[in-house]
């Protein structure tokens, strides 16, 4: 320990960690409360975080797992820039700190006594970001710029924000949501300053460093508890014109884990590509599930994890590859893949539904986007829950009574898809059936996985049933777009989770 750095005792550690967590939660509350779009308010598809002056993510409000591991890259993207008090950075470029275009991140440097002390950041999934298809989730994009407005890291002011939202649909709602994000950042700045004035800026900085170390120690303690070894796993993504293979090799040496994706397919013409930050987020989700589910949401937790993905592969794509589905679908598959590989030395669950079942319906004057839950894979000691979001998402559904009051849609069925979870000593969770009738002409876009390949069981457990989708009873593929006439019915049946162990639990 360097001389002059205040010693952080176990109590101060908890006190500062608690205060920073409360600050992040308050940022999240400000964002959800003052945003306008249903996507943020009803579904809570957003995250807020505080960083130290080196750009390490110290603490985050826990909303959406895919945001947790990927936010550090957003701050890294502006770290080399000159920072000034009152700066506001905006970005969504997946190749420069973003994930996919609908996720817009705002970052504010925090100055205390004239010194850069850290960053406050907020990320929200916006209902639309311009582009050829409403909602920024096209099924067939091949280049990033087809998916919406690409925002490189930019120092923003009111004029720049106004200019950006003018290129998107419903600019007033966009601007209101961006203002809500800015309000969240300002709350974070204020709370960090209060902590510095109470404890001193030096102790706050030392405390943030200690929170990162603490999270690291917890992960290392968990990794050290497993026997050294290697695990390999292989799985596929269901591209429209064939399967894409993903591979990982996990190597555990003491308290250090390496995940190497060599052998994974190269980036593709479609939009299942991931920037490395999304791949990293999925890896870290898996490591956290296996090692330390209750640890603080802090970047220190993944210091012991080294991630290698060959440049230009599907999981470390280069511009201008399209990435819309990478964040939602490929990330889900990477989480499965890594959990499977870690199964070589740790107890891990069977595969969950492994998709978010992204559905966009858009017609005259409206865009509705929703993701649908499914079955969770069974664990070594418990059944998998039914009808929940698994892995990288955890957004709420839109109430039927809200949906039908706002859009020309009628929900015909919302039910648990009985029997879709795999059998075993512990059963996989069941998926969901959601059937929607169009009341006027509109266009649908579906992006879903696990339609051709079932979520796998573990240790002798049976696989879950793959998802199945149809229009008026006629099957459609998992990645589909088309027109619905008034009276047409779109039915989504989401996958069940895999079972665990032999037997009929």
């Amino acid at each position, binding site marked *: 320990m360097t001389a002059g750095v205040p010693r952080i005792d*176990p*109590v101060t550690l908890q006190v500062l960690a608690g205060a920073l967590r409360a600050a992040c939660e308050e940022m999240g509350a400000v964002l959800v409360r003052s945003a306008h779009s249903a996507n943020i308010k009803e579904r809570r598809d957003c995250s807020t975080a505080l960083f130290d002056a080196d750009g390490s993510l110290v603490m985050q409000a826990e909303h959406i797992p895919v945001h947790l591991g990927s936010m550090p890259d957003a701050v890294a993207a502006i770290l080399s820039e000159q920072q000034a008090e009152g700066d506001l950075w905006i970005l969504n470029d997946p190749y420069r700190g973003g994930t996919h275009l609908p996720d817009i991140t705002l970052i504010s440097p925090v100055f205390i006594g004239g010194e850069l002390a850290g960053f406050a950041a907020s990320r929200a999934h916006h209902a639309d970001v311009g582009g050829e298809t409403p909602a920024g989730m096209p099924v067939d994009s091949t280049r990033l710029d087809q998916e919406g407005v690409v925002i490189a890291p930019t120092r923003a002011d009111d004029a720049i924000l106004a200019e950006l939202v003018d290129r998107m649909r419903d600019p007033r709602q966009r601007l209101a949501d961006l203002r809500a994000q800015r309000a969240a950042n300002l709350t974070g700045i204020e709370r960090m300053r209060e902590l510095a004035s109470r404890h001193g800026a030096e102790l706050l900085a030392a405390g943030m460093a200690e929170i990162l170390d603490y999270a690291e120690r917890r992960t290392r303690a968990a990794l050290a508890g497993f026997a050294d070894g290697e695990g390999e796993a292989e799985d596929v993504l269901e591209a429209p014109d064939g399967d894409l293979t993903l591979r990982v090799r996990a190597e555990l040496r003491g308290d250090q884990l390496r995940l190497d994706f060599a052998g994974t397919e190269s980036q593709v013409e479609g939009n299942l590509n991931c920037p490395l930050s999304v791949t990293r987020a999925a890896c870290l989700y898996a490591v956290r599930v296996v090692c330390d589910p209750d640890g603080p949401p802090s970047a220190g937790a993944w210091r012991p994890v080294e991630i290698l993905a060959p440049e230009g592969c599907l999981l470390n794509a280069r511009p201008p590859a399209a990435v819309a589905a990478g964040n939602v679908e490929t990330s889900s598959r990477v989480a499965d893949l890594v959990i499977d590989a870690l199964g070589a030395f740790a107890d891990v669950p069977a595969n969950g539904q492994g998709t978010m079942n992204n559905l966009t319906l858009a017609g005259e004057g409206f865009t509705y986007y929703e993701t649908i839950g499914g079955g969770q894979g069974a664990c070594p000691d418990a059944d998998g829950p039914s009808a929940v979001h698994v892995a990288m998402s955890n957004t709420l559904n839109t*109430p*039927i009574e809200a949906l*039908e*009051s706002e859009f020309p849609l009628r929900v015909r069925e919302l039910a648990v898809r009985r029997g879709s979870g795999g059998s075993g000593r512990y059963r996989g969770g069941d998926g969901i059936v959601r059937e929607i009738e169009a009341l006027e002409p509109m266009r649908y876009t579906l992006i879903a996985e696990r339609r051709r390949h079932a979520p796998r069981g573990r240790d002798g457990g049976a696989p879950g049933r793959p998802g199945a989708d149809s229009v008026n009873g006629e099957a459609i593929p998992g990645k589909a777009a088309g027109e619905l006439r008034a009276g047409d019915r779109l039915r989504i049946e989401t996958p069940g989770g895999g079972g665990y162990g032999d037997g009929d639990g």
Partner: protein
Amino acid sequence: MLLGVDVGGTFTDAALLSGDELHTAKVPTTPDDQSAGVIASVEAVLEHAGAEPTEVEAFTHGMTVGTNALLEERGARTALVATRGFADLLEIRRQARPSLYRPCATPPAALVGAELRFEAAERIGPSEVIEELPESEVERLAGAIAEAAPEAVAICLLFSFRDPSHERQLAAALREALPDAHISASCEVLPAFREYERCSTTVIDAYLSPLLGRYLGRLAEASAARGLPAPLVMRSSGGTAEVAEAAESGAWSVLSGPAGGAVGAAVLARLTGDGNAVGLDMGGTSCDVCVVDGGEVRRTDSREIAGRPIQLPMVDVHTVGAGGGSIAWADPGGALRVGPRSAGAEPGPASYGRGGDEPTVTDANLVLGYLAPDSRLAGGVELDADAARRAIATLARRLGLEQTEAAEGIVRVANQEMARALRVVTVERGVDPRRYALLPFGGAGPMHAAALAEELEMTRIACPRASGVLSALGLVAAGRRRDTARTLLLSGDELTAERLSSEVRELAASVREDLAGTELEVVYELRYRGQAFELAIPGPAEPDVAALAESFAAEHEARYGYRDPAAALELVNLRVAAVVRGPEPRPRAAERGAADELRREARFGGEWVDARVLRGEPAAGERAEGPCVFELPEATLVLPPGWRAEVDQTGTVLAERSGGSG
């Protein structure tokens, strides 16, 4: 004489107000049948006051029967009738999982199993009936459900808040087919939009009502047999209802217990200050916090209890698992943690000497000199300071800390958890805590109040003389209240003064029945059309639409920083409550000389300090400066250096922090 009885997890408290004289009693709670402990506490407090049961004019009861049954899943065998295609709503919930990183953590089980969920072939949409409910279908369902013989049935159909006719048809048929079962229809429980939350509320109502009916029946009988008046029951809204009404509507009493505390906090805030206070009720296992604004408890219209939403008007009480019995431990990363595990009453903290050897918050308070080693806690427990020290020393070694450091740490970490709860009800709701007094109560609240006030930069504390039994006092003061609401979704030409006042009149008529002397509370829940959430704007029964629009725009601007004159205004819900004000108790401070003077060493700012201790009920006008400790009859108030206190006419210790040392 006014009587209030509050049943808590460990103790049942009674408060009897005779003029301005307050008598209190504490007896052990009787979990198998709470009414036995209730009657025992009544007998104890009457004996203390030398009064007869027949002198009691009103008897109000707060209970945890409903909450416990919900937490332990011990309610009635309940069936559910839903719109065809939607019987699983209750199980799908909002599709979120309870724990992000524990894949197999399960949400609480649906209170109605799949075999007791029935679907009705009918459908109502946002503006019209899409599929009629034929009489033959009603008969079929009534027959099938009668066959399954549930104790209770919940009915929740889509859009019943728009058109309740199908639910009413089914409810009538089921009441005839199952005369002994309790039937809850969502349009009767509370006709508000968002189907899952409404369904969950209706199911909880059906699930709890039979049990509540039996319990309240026993209590009413026992009261009558002793010459007591028929009890009134505290509901989650902070107002009371007669036994028959409470027994018919189980979902409305789930927060009966905490509501008494919140109303008690409101009474004291009105009596001792400007009516603005943050209530902090810390007991053995948990801590409840609430905000009192202008003398009224803040309410909310929805919350979750043990992971199950209830969409009804309730006092806005937030609960965290930090109490005197919360256990301190070292986690694998080497951090000191407190709770959520609690030593409860058995074995209790190490210092109770009943076999507990894990250190708790109470043990730390004892080691630090905040709690007197020679004092008896409520219920006659004698504390063993050596046992507390041993337990803390073991933990201290594991963390590489000195024993005293560890004790201080336990208190700081527990305070952190409570400070988070206080932030949730204040800053996260847009309330600036610095404008409020902290009003601590419950056995442990006043011990932590000063540290929490400093954490939230609050400068005032009001610690009531009756802080150990404030919930019971709140029951004495509670008024009658009946709430109702309707989802209207009106905008544009439909949003007229005539339409609103006629809706208010209808709702008012439904809640005012046989409540004499009522005031009406009307709240308009408005939003800009297209927004997902509404703002609650109080208004008159005969509203002016332009004035409502202006109030809404002003509130929107205050909360979100702008108004939008171009957007259309939409009325989502109309809420109406009939309220009969309760009595305003004025407890009086003790006569001069009731408190003894002592001194003892206590730990403040990392040092042992010789602190003044006032034991017993302090007299009005008594002053003290921190460091000092008030050992009140049922609670201990700890004031560090920098605080000055004076006792007011009601016996409340009013403390203020002079700047500087904070």
